[in-house]
């Protein structure tokens, strides 16, 4: 039954521009609820593109994408936006923070646009601000820093803010695109601990892209994109 699957892909094809060579061609992929998947592959092989397709950021040229039982093909552009914020915590490779907003406001953004995330963030009777502080603190960000606009932060700090934003409000699926690329070893450990803890608490499935193969031991499954993808890229 598809309901038990967090992610179901069949015959997915995607190219960036009409006429460009196929970037992704994946016959099938299924990820069960509760799985923690480590995805790896060469730079430029299409890892970020695949995550974007799963989160409804891009639309496939052909094929079927089902996330948490929802067929993404059925949703409009704004429908996918709403679905994403309600159900998916996405850590972008580019972080995608709003530069002029203070750190705390950036983290709280999903709660501003999703009632579901807001309700989840407040679940233990705390305010959503307290929840944001808890996540940020677990990632080593606190005090004065939270009132700073995001563009005043170092790259590693920005990455952790992006992570806290993805985790707030307990999304049912967490997608992380190289979330530790700018972190030192200690921070990487803190981050992984928090991420796995949050996923375990929720039994949320986790899709994790990284070049750092040492992290693979924390995951229940390893996926090589090259093995998955039939499209041959230069």
């Amino acid at each position, binding site marked *: 039954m598809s309901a038990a699957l967090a992610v179901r892909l069949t015959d997915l094809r995607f190219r960036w521009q009409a006429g460009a060579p196929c970037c992704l061609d994946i016959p099938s992929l299924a990820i069960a609820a509760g799985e923690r998947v480590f995805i790896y592959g060469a730079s430029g092989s299409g890892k970020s593109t695949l995550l974007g397709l799963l989160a409804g950021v*891009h639309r496939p040229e052909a094929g079927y994408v089902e996330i948490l039982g929802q067929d993404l093909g059925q949703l409009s552009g*704004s429908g996918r*936006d709403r679905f*994403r*914020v309600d159900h998916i915590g996405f850590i972008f490779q580019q972080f995608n923070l709003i530069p002029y907003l203070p750190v705390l406001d950036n983290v709280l*953004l999903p709660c501003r646009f999703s009632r579901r995330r807001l309700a989840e963030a407040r679940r233990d009777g705390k305010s959503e601000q307290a929840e944001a502080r808890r996540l940020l603190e677990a990632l080593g960000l606190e005090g004065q820093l939270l009132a700073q606009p995001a563009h005043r932060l170092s790259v590693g700090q920005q990455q952790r803010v992006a992570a806290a934003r993805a985790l707030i409000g307990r999304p049912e699926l967490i997608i992380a695109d190289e979330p530790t690329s700018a972190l030192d070893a200690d921070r990487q450990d803190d981050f992984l601990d928090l991420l796995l803890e949050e996923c375990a608490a929720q039994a949320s499935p986790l899709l994790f892209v990284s070049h750092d193969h040492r992290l693979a031991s924390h995951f229940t499954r390893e996926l090589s994109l090259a093995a998955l993808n039939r499209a041959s890229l230069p």
Partner: protein
Amino acid sequence: MSALLRIALLSAWNRRLTLGLTVLAIALAVALLLGVERSRVAARTSFAQSVSGTDLILGARTSPVQLMLYSVFRIGGATHDIGWDSYEAIARHPDVAWSIPLALGDSHRGFPVVGTNAAYFEHFRYGRERKLALAQGRPFAGLFETVLGAEVARRLGYRLGDRITLSHGSGAPNLAEHDDKPFTVVGILAPTGTPVDHSLHVSLEAITAIHLDWQGGAPIPGVRIAAAHVEKFDLRPKTLTAALIGLKQRAAVFKVQRDINRYADEPLLAALPGVALDELWRVVALVEQVLLGISALVVAVGLAGLVAVILASLGERRRELAVLRSVGAGPRHILALLALEGGGVTLAGIGLGLVGLELLAWLAGPLLEARLGLTLALQGVTLAELQRLAAVAATGMAASLLPAALAYRRALGDGLTPRL
């Protein structure tokens, strides 16, 4: 919604320089749009006020507009005078209640001199049935006495008892001076906001007296008649420039006008001030239309600037809007965000323009009133202005929605990848 407002404010603050300049451009455009209209209305009111109490203007045959301009507004000069006898005959017309004779043509330091008689102080009306009032002193009684308009006294700093000399002709200085016959200031009128403020008033006899030893606009060589001796001459005026006429009943105005225009002994003209003014406005209307057109164009430029700034910032904000979408902001949020900004900028511009205009009226108002007789009083926004402002605001809002629509038509992934 308050979160969205906070985002809008922080985002706008982040781009405060460009937005500030846009607000300024709209403010200037709005100030111009309303300023042109207000000066137009002020000019009309001030002109209408100056002739409100007069039923007919009597003068030599010319165009009614010209007659009104030189007799009431002292703009331009008369080409012909009228005979004193003709004036007296008209003044005795059974339907005429009062008449004010006017002898023009001399000046004092650029201000026109009006030769007239006591009827001026008694019958002249301006604004809403208002009579002339003396701020200081008394009407002229003796031959070489003068009563100054409020602006003349203020600008030249004259006080009661000062002695002044008149110049022949109007306009440029170093005209021939009537310097052998100085006048004493005996009265200063209260301000009226009409051309009266800019005039010096003397008796008709005084006008005759200073021209006794003159002929054809220049002193007769070798003839000097001292001020002390003029009383020996017959000082009754022989000619007149114009006369203002009040009727017993307004209804008779066309009859009296016809009688004057058919006057047998001399070609005369009786002009209805209201009709002459309308004619004047018809002439000026084209210029007004052009001015209004120009100010409308300026507003259009201001609004085009707003759209340009929002569109330009859209490139800049491509990522920002995409990020907002990626965290779940729907089309209505993006729309609200941009409309909030466009509306805010437009309203701020309109507000600033209004405040600027009032400030200008407050600062430059006295100057305009003195120089041009224009009363740009501080005033509330009129209904017509409100309509124009609403049109500006609506255009501004609509303009800001266009980028909002564009923002949502872009693919999300497009905005999320930073362009190098």
